[in-house]
């Protein structure tokens, strides 16, 4: 296991230069979750139109894995239908569980997270942003808190 299994350039880039990290005032859906065991916290906000995620932004604090995963997520689901976003979320989870071999075309930067599979306790960090997104769209943004399990 070499360090760049997990800290790939892509990840460090998203961590140091997060995309879409901003407030989204008046967003249609928004949700915050934290992982109390790690201290990671992520808020996802998005606008929805015709079942499509228009703008997707995040805020939060935490380790490079949780924050870069959030950054990559905002890029990859922006413009997708909720259905497509959810199916990508499922694939990302599958990749992190070592069960799905990522399709580079679909995953893009997200492929960089694949190395996390070797570090079981970091998987939750990588998944957090996706949990928040899922909860945000599933309840239409009503929820705005709660600890991820």
């Amino acid at each position, binding site marked *: 296991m070499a*360090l760049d299994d997990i*800290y790939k350039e892509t990840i*460090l880039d998203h961590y140091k230069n997060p995309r879409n990290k901003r407030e989204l005032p008046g967003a249609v859906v928004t949700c915050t979750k934290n992982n109390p*065991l*790690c*201290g990671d916290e992520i808020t996802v906000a998005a606008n929805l139109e015709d079942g499509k995620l228009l703008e997707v932004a995040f805020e939060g604090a935490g380790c490079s894995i949780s924050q870069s995963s959030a950054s990559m997520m905002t890029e990859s689901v922006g413009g997708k239908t909720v259905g497509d976003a959810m199916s990508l979320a499922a694939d990302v989870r599958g990749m992190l569980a070592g069960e799905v071999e990522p399709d580079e075309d679909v995953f893009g930067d997200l492929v960089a997270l694949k190395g996390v599979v070797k570090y079981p306790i970091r998987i939750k960090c990588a998944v957090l942003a996706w949990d928040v997104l899922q909860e945000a769209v599933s309840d239409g943004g009503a929820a705005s808190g709660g600890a991820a399990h």
Partner: protein
Amino acid sequence: MAVTERRAGSIDVESVRADFPILGRTPHGKKLVYLDSANTSQKPRQVIDTVSEYYREHNANLYRAVYELAEEATAMFETARLKLAAFIGAPDPTTVVFNRGTTESINLVANGWGRRFLKEGDEVLLTDMEHHSNIVPWQLVANATGAVLRYLPLTEEGSLDLTNLESLITERTKVLAVTGQSNVLGTLPPLKELASAAHAVGAVVVVDGAQLVPHNPVDVVDLGIDFLTISGHKMLGPTASGGLYGRRELLDAMDPFLGGGEMIMEVFPDHSTYKEPPHKFEAGTMNIAQEIGLAAAIDYLESLGMDAVREHEKQLTAYAIGRLEDAGAVVHGPKDVEVRGGAVSFWYRDIHPHDLAQVLDQEGVCVRASHHCAQILMRHLGVPATTRASFYVYNTTEDVDALVDALARAEAVFA
């Protein structure tokens, strides 16, 4: 570092290190630098071999069997009790109850003493730096009894803030439960002073000794405390070893906790009578091999001398705090090694502790990045987690140097 500097305190660290087989491991091809002893300590071959030998030569269940193996096992187990009692200065070995460690011990006191004696409105006084194991059992018993939890606050620096002690320790205070040494900040609270303040209002003093006992000479009589918990796995002993010291009058007065075989005198369909302490609190088949292993750990520590152990850690801690601060780390907790032990938590250049620990691992350096089971303290410090290096008898200033070198590597990755 020069060899002379490695021999901190009066411990011959090189010969100590030779006793710990695990130090021969080379994770990621690097020398193992184990700086997580506050979490669990490594074990010397003397302890490992004692456990093996027990199973190979003496294994049997305790007490009432009349054959030779059982007599040997019983004698070894009870000798372990004498050793643990002597190690913590308890004159009466019946005041030492064996169990899995601090968590089980605090649950024992919270249930056996707390459910029996706490009433609605009574107060249990904790502190803002307690480990969850010294909080959650009290929450559960408070819930069951109507007692209320209060918390002694901390100073900016991370010591107990005793300025308003009188307003917190009152006639309502029935229990003061405090750590003997913080697992995050290293802080050594003034136990004697706290015990006499608590006793002045008739409260019972429970000391979480998880970190205190492995790293300091301890004398329960001199400290004047009522209960002390011991985690064997943190003091060179096997996992699942440890126990609880309790003043005999309190052990007599409180209820049993776990019910079952060996803690009873007579069982009738609707009630039972119990043995005297310590057996009253030792239900079912005990952690026999583990406590016998703990006795070997105590022998090992006593051969070094607990004063020397403390001195060794003081020197390492002072050295580590100096080098970490020079490297730009912010060290939490008191800086004066006279009032703190060798658990050193720090924050390094805004690199998240998980990222930091992961990079250090690649260099063979094992530290813990976590809330350290002290979320209330994390909120006080305003951090989600800290990175913690902690020391024991086998650590050297070279280990500290390896830590500081690895920090530079992390900076290179995340800068």
